[in-house]
C-alpha cells in the first residue's frame, strides 16, 4: 500500500503546493491523476518517487518512508518524468549500464517493448526525437517490472499508433501487485484504462474515487432543460446544458472526465460533498 499522510510541501515559503494532503493507493489499479497546470501533479508524483522531500508529513510505500530512499524501495519503483533526460547511449547500452539496479528487469521484455513501440535499439537515445526518447524510457520503465510505476504525461509526444501500443502495453503489464500511476491532461488517451480518478485541486486531493463509484453516483448528459433535476454542475453550450446530475436511478451514462474536472476545479461543493459521502475505500 502507498500512503501519503498529511503531506505539506512548498518550493517557496508562503506558497504551499500541498496542505495536509492525504492519499492511499492500492496495488492492482491504474490511477489517473488530473489537475490544473501548476496544481502540483508532477510534485506529487515526485513525492511518491522520493525525488522531492516534504516539509512535513510522509509518503510510505509498504510502510517504508520513501524519502529515506532505501534500496528496497528504489529498486522496485520506476518514474518516467515528463521532461526526460537521456544519455548519449543507445538503448542497448543504456540497458547494460542501468538495468542492474532493477532486480526484476527483463531484457526480453525490454527488446519486445522497443519493437512494439517502434524504437530502434541501435540508435543513440540523445539523437532521437522527443517522442522516440519517451518511448525508449517507457519500454525501459515497463521492463524493470517494478511494482510502482509512475508516469508523468506519458502520452505527450507519442504519435497515434504509439498511443494505441502504449494502451495495449499498460493493459498487459497491470497485475495484482502493481501500482500504475499516470498523470495526464490528455484524458481521452487513457479513459478506458484508468480505473481510479484522482483530482488534485486547492492543495489537496479533491477526488479519489473509482470510475465505478463515480458512475454509480453521477449521471452525465446533455439536456435541453435541467429545471427540476438534481443538478450538481452544468455548463451552458449552444446545444444545451452539459450537466452532471445525482444518479438516483442507477442508470449508466458515459463519464465525461473533462466535465467532471471542470466541476471539481471550479469548486462545485455539491459534487465534492457527494463524492466524499461514503467515499472511504478499502
Amino acid at each position, binding site marked *: 500500500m502507498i500512503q501519503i499522510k498529511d503531506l505539506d510541501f512548498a518550493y517557496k515559503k508562503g506558497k504551499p503546493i500541498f496542505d495536509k494532503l492525504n492519499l492511499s493507493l492500492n496495488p*492492482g*489499479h*491504474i490511477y489517473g491523476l488530473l489537475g490544473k497546470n501548476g496544481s502540483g501533479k508532477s510534485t506529487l508524483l515526485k513525492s511518491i518517487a522520493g525525488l522531492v522531500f516534504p516539509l512535513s508529513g510522509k509518503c510510505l510505500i509498504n510502510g517504508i518512508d520513501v524519502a529515506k530512499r532505501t534500496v528496497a524501495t528504489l529498486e522496485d519503483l520506476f518514474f518516467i518524468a515528463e521532461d526526460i533526460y537521456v544519455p548519449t547511449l543507445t538503448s542497448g547500452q543504456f540497458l547494460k549500464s542501468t538495468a542492474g539496479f532493477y532486480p526484476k528487469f527483463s531484457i526480453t521484455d525490454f527488446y519486445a517493448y522497443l519493437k512494439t513501440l517502434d524504437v530502434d535499439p541501435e540508435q543513440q537515445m540523445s539523437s532521437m526525437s522527443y517522442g522516440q526518447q519517451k518511448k525508449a524510457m517507457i519500454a525501459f520503465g515497463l521492463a524493470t517490472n517494478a511494482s510502482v510505476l509512475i508516469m508523468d504525461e506519458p502520452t505527450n509526444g507519442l504519435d497515434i499508433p504509439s498511443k*494505441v501500443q502504449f*494502451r*495495449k502495453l499498460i*493493459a*498487459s503489464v*497491470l497485475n495484482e501487485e502493481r501500482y500504475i500511476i499516470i498523470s495526464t491532461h490528455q484524458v481521452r488517451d487513457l479513459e*478506458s*484504462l*484508468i*480505473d481510479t480518478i484522482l483530482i488534485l485541486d486547492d492543495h489537496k486531493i479533491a477526488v479519489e474515487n473509482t470510475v465505478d463509484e463515480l*458512475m454509480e453516483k453521477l449521471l452525465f448528459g446533455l439536456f435541453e432543460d435541467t429545471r427540476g433535476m438534481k443538478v450538481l454542475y452544468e455548463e451552458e453550450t449552444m446545444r444545451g446544458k452539459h450537466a452532471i446530475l445525482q444518479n438516483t436511478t442507477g442508470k*449508466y*451514462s*458515459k463519464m465525461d472526465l473533462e466535465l467532471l474536472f471542470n466541476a471539481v476545479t471550479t469548486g462545485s461543493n455539491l459534487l465534492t460533498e457527494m463524492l466524499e459521502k461514503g467515499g472511504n475505500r478499502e
Partner: protein
Amino acid sequence: MEFKDNEAIYLQIAAFVCDNILTGKWTAGQKILSVRDLAVELEVNPNTVMRSYEFLQAQEIVYNKRGLGLFVADDGFEKVKAYRKQSFVEQNLPDFFKNIYLLDISIDDIRRQYEDFQAKQAAKLNNEEHEDKH
C-alpha cells in the same frame, strides 16, 4: 472496439464475448481469451474485463477451470441465445412495433421481406459450406 455511451463498458465487453459465442467463433468447451489478452486487444483496464468475465460466469455462459482459464459452457450458446431473445423482445421489439405502426407498414409486407431475407441467408450458408468442402 468502439464503445457506446449508454451502457457500462463491462457489459459491452460481455456482449462482445456473447457475440463470439453466437456467431460460432467460440464454441462449447472452447477456452476463451484470458483477461489480459482481451484487455490488450480492447485497450481497456484488465479489471474491467475481469468484471465482464465474472458477470458471464454468474450467468453460467462461461465457467472457470482452476488454473486453466475460462471456457464456454456446454449450453453457452443456448444461454446466450435465450438471453438475447429476451432482451430483443423487451427492448427492440417495442421500438419496431412503434415504427411499423407509425409508418403504416403491414405485417404481410414485413413477412414477405423477411422470407426473402431468410432465403438469402440460407443460400449464403449453402455457399459457405460448399466452399469449406473445397
